[in-house]
């Protein structure tokens, strides 16, 4: 029997496709009484006044007006990861509920995935692996080439914490770094990674061999990369997306990839996820797609849960939360 003095934390489910990881349950149970959506819906009257917090993992449970109305004592929603585009922040705030994300846990690991995708795209790693194991391969051609990463130009669109960690990594590959950001970074920060500010995104697009998207999804960044932007890129360039699928105009991307407007793309995110099985992006040879694995390591997922718990406990004790998110 769980300690009934512990506050009640509502989660979607344990395990399965969208559930909180089983490995995290013992840790969560140290601090909370866990209740799944299924258990909640089966005994709504009993639980509704007791739920003080929700742990949102991979966008579940869905937070809508109905749910918020049914939880009169809900104090905080802690969302795993850094993106909060799946939450109606105004709506939630309107109910007097605080919101937190877990940005710090994800920075390094998401930067690692950005570089992994950049290198995989440049060196045609996925295609290469297919050749290496294919039953039809009789010999390796010496004329099967990729693009050099060392010394190439990387354009980082979105130089927040994750973008900056990418710059730090890219610098070790002697890459020339350009960046575009809402606000320019301080001079010493720029110098530390050798990054050159491009006030106009066009300049970055025209000069980069690799363009990396590291922005969050907002009305301003929706379809930030469309036909015009793709055409400004070099025909030898690769686009890497670790932001959100909607930052790119996907139809225009397909066209650009099919017609050689850009060379290749590698994306950890699409819209929707997964893409419909007949989507053209799935069939292009010059595309690498990963199933939104940006933060998916044992270590980082656990750190996310730890941070989420810290946020919830702070909120329940009326204290400032380490990573509170406010509506715009």
């Amino acid at each position: 029997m769980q300690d009934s003095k512990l506050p009640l934390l509502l989660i979607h489910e344990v395990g399965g496709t969208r559930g909180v990881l089983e490995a995290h349950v013992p840790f969560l149970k140290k601090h909370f009484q866990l209740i799944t959506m299924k258990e909640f819906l089966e005994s709504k009257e009993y639980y509704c006044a007791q739920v003080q917090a929700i742990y949102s993992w991979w966008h579940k449970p869905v937070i809508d007006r109905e749910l918020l109305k049914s939880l009169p004592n809900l104090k905080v929603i802690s969302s795993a990861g850094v993106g909060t585009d799946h939450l109606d922040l105004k709506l939630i705030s309107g109910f007097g509920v605080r919101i937190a994300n877990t940005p710090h846990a994800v920075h390094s690991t998401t930067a690692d995935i950005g570089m992994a995708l950049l290198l995989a795209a440049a060196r045609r790693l996925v295609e290469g692996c297919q050749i290496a194991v294919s039953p039809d391969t009789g010999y390796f051609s010496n004329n099967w080439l990729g693009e050099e990463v060392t010394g190439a130009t990387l354009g980082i669109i979105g130089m927040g914490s994750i973008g900056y960690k990418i710059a730090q990594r890219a610098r070790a590959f002697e890459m020339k770094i350009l960046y575009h950001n809402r606000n320019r970074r301080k001079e010493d920060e720029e110098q530390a990674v050798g990054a050159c500010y491009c006030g106009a995104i066009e300049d970055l697009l025209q000069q980069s061999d690799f363009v990396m998207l590291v922005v969050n999804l907002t009305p301003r960044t929706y379809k930030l990369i469309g036909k015009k932007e793709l055409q400004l890129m070099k025909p030898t360039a690769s686009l890497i997306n670790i932001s959100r699928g909607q930052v790119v105009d996907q139809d225009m991307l397909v066209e650009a990839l099919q017609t050689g407007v850009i060379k290749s793309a590698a994306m950890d995110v699409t819209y929707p996820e997964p893409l419909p099985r007949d989507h053209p992006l799935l069939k292009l040879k010059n595309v690498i797609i990963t199933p939104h694995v940006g933060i998916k390591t044992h270590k980082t997922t656990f750190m996310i849960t730890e941070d989420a718990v810290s946020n919830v406990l702070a909120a329940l004790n009326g204290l400032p939360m380490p990573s509170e998110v406010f509506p715009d």
Partner: protein
Amino acid sequence: MGFMALQKCPIANCHLLGWQLEASFHETMEENEHPYTLINVIGGTNGVYEDHVEFLEKHFKLITMKEFTENKQDLSHKIKAIFMWFHKPVVDRDLLQSLPNLKVIANCGVGVDHLDLKLISSFGVKVANTPFAVSNPTADLGMALMLASARRIVEGHQIAVSPDTKCFMADWLGEEINGATLGIIGMGTIGYKVAQRARAFEMNILYHNRNRRNEADEQAVGAVYCPKLEDLLQGSDFVILSVNLSPQTQKLIGRKELELMKPTATLINISRGQVVDQDALVNALKNGVIKAAALDVTYPEPLPRDHALLHLKNVIITPHLGSATSKARHLMMRNMVESILAGVSGLPVPNEVHV
């Protein structure tokens, strides 16, 4: 060379005043400036690259193996150099004997384990490789393989595009790179560049090398020297092999070494297939002795299509892509041209490989 009276050389366009020289000297000078150089073939899947030919022909009179075989009498004494592109043409005793004026063999890439250096040296022929042209792309590929393996990029892509995929599982996880420990076996030029890159990923670096690097080099990348290979193997989450293939490094990683590694560790090989005991590796991967492997090199290349390594889920293999970028191959070619021009002129040969 013979000299006669002091007068201007009568050969047209010759700028040499003073001494009339035998025709053979003039011919030799021309040949040294535009030396006859043996290549295997141009184009196709493994020949000299067609877009390199223009530059090569500026400096060399290219003779293909086909042309040589058809016209041995005339050509054999003219050939001064061999431009060896991916192990071809094959240099054996027969070929060396048929090229009495051969001065230099330029080999593309850094590995010379396919050459009988003693034999070649016994014919008074110099050998040059291209160590620096390959070092950046090879270090890059080592990083690419480590990241791809840890974060399961290849598997992930397969899931993302599979017709059977309906949703992405939440509990599908990879291994963390940042904060993990990388053990570099072989800290030469390539190994050091791997260390420089890995450091930026906030990795802890251990290394094992024939000779310890100087303190400044170690500190610059935060690398800790392990005089005993065992310590490196036991302490690493990722082990990368960047040694050259020699009798000392043949099967350097065998059953004992694999068993010393953590069961959660990954082996990355960018050296040569023979540095690893492949059968022991298969066993280790099948039985969870180590977690995964990522190999740019195997023995042979390609592996037979029924080889166990091709069918293990925890292995990724790339088709020897270490130096496979247009930029690197162009630079390799340029380095080889320099080595050949120096070799035929009796000058010190850049990138000479000593026996």
